């Protein structure tokens, strides 16, 4: 599904290398987790995959199926099936959540040559998804993320993911800032979307989320590289011992 090879990324404005050769393959239907110390480049990886400006790819490739992601505009990547749940969802005053989602859903459909969703169908669809994430009608009417609590913002990300039905979902610390119940809700939301044709890359600092969303593979990222990959037990090791031993292993 997602195949990243030897990805090197530096900042556009500054001569600073952030990703130093990332190799990562997520198979169809799989869930992979990435853990790693602060500043190791996890969010940068997710931004570069989604097409945020300010980064320069100096080497390597990233393919989603047979689509070369790095050649595309962010909206084209989204239409190709990529979705990023942001570590810090952006507030957009003046744009209603509902308008935003409807524009997004229909833009993607249009880009794929599909018919737009009718207003009625859209409403039915969003109400159903919102209900399962305990997002009330008021939150749908409010401007995107404005005045939302940390947890509400994260649930709103998952709502968007559910509405857009992407093939490849990247979740960047969707669990941070969530209370125990909200974490369960989010995990259920993710699990409900799990299917053969859909893969997940879950960036997290905590084992707890991975109790709910069972990963197939866990990767450890440090200083712009994947330094180790393994099964779910790797996450437990990090939880118990931190990164010191792992870092020492590769040093």
């Amino acid at each position, binding site marked *: 599904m997602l195949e990243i090879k030897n990805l090197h990324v530096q900042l556009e404005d500054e001569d600073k290398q952030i990703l130093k050769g990332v190799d990562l393959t997520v198979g169809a239907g799989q869930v992979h987790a990435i853990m790693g110390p602060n500043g190791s480049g996890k969010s940068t990886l997710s931004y570069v995959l989604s097409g945020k400006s300010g980064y320069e790819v100096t080497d390597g490739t990233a393919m989603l199926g047979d689509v070369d992601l790095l050649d595309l505009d*962010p909206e084209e990547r989204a239409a190709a099936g990529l979705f990023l749940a942001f570590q810090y969802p952006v507030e957009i005053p003046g744009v209603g959540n509902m308008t935003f989602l409807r524009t997004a859903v229909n833009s993607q459909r249009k880009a794929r040559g599909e018919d737009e969703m009718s207003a009625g169908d859209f409403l039915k669809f969003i109400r159903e998804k919102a209900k399962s994430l305990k997002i009330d009608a008021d939150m749908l009417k409010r401007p995107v993320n404005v005045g939302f609590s940390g947890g509400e913002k994260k649930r709103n990300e998952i709502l968007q993911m559910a509405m857009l039905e992407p093939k490849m979902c990247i979740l960047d610390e969707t669990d941070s800032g969530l209370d125990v119940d909200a974490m369960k809700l989010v995990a259920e939301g993710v699990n409900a979307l799990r299917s053969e044709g859909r893969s997940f890359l879950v960036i997290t600092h905590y084992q707890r989320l991975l109790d709910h969303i069972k990963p197939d593979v866990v990767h450890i990222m440090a200083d712009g590289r994947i330094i180790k990959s393994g099964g779910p037990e790797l996450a437990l090791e990090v939880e118990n011992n931190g990164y010191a031993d792992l870092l020492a292993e590769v040093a």
Partner: protein
Amino acid sequence: MTVASKIAADPRLDGLTVPAGGWPTAARSSALMRLQTMGLPVKRDEYWRYTDPSALVCEAPLPCDPLQTSTPIFGTVDKTRLVFVDGVFDADQSDAPELAGVEITRLFEVNDLDLHWAQGLYGKLEEAGQSPVARPLAALNTAQATEGMLVRVTGKPEKPLHISYRQSSKTSEAILHHVIKVEAGAELTLLETGTPGARSNVVLEVDIADGGTLHHVRPQGRAHGRHVATHLFARVATEATLKSFTLSLNGQLTRNEIVTEIVGDDAAVHVGGACVGDGDAFHHDDTVFITHDAVNCESRQVFKKVLRNGATGVFQGKILVKAGAQKTDGYQISQALLLDGDSQFLAKPELEIYADDVACSHGSTSGAIDEDAMFYLRSRGVPEKEAQNLLVIAFLGEALDEIENEDLAADLQSRLEAWFSRHST
């Protein structure tokens, strides 16, 4: 500007006489004298520092292609419509000037009609608004105008009064002077729409008595080459309310001045505007002066501009709180969204306060579109242009929120959306 330097007669005013016609003649003559003392505006006048008035005062209007009419604005709103074509009232295209609770008289026909209420106002609010800052274009208007409507509101008419401007000649000059008197407890919604002429000079004198309310909504049309100067002079009495909103799209030069004096306690004045400018020929100037001369009054100024391809926006806004005008709540915000590095916004916000128990705030910002918001929208699949349009409309939407009537606001919002979808290339 020193008055003395200008007394040496502005040659551009040579031979200017006032049109005869009933009681306004005296007011016109007195305005002409004021004008001769002030002289017409020039770029070096402090008040015209950011805006070159020459196209507004040169001998003949610069040509402006009339706009091919599209779907009429506020088409679904029931209203009484008065149409002016190239600045001249057109009875055939208008509704009968009848609206329960409102008396409507055409300035052109006033002659010796005894309109006591209007005689005390015509040119009077304009004259009062000449200090501390001279507004010669308004004096010129009072001296020259023969067209306009004198409107006295005595009740609460069930539908808005609509003054609809149309331009048909490429070189027309429209000089219109309206007087609106809202009697105690009365309430009117006044819609003023379209481009009056290739060059327009419109004055609106508004007097709102105790507990009266005027809602004024003014989309200024879309003619590209138009040159427009407007003045809204208002006097607002106890517990009275004035809400005025202007939408400007296109046009070359627009100067909208609002001069409001709050003279009664517990009154409220909200003025706002949204403007969209495209191209380096575009220049739009909002100049606002609000005087608080009473206790416990509120004033709000909310002006937003979206500028691109070298367009220029200007905001000069002042809140003057006189001694004794305690418990004044004054708010002023002017913001510009610059869609490229060639466009510019010039702002001069001012507060002058002579009372100690007041809460006044003002702010002015200009900046580019929020890149993080752009990326967020695009990462959800919204194409770049559409994402930008969403953000731009959202930005202007905060100004449109100032309009109380939701149907009117929604119509203006849809005009903006249409404009941006037509103009996103």
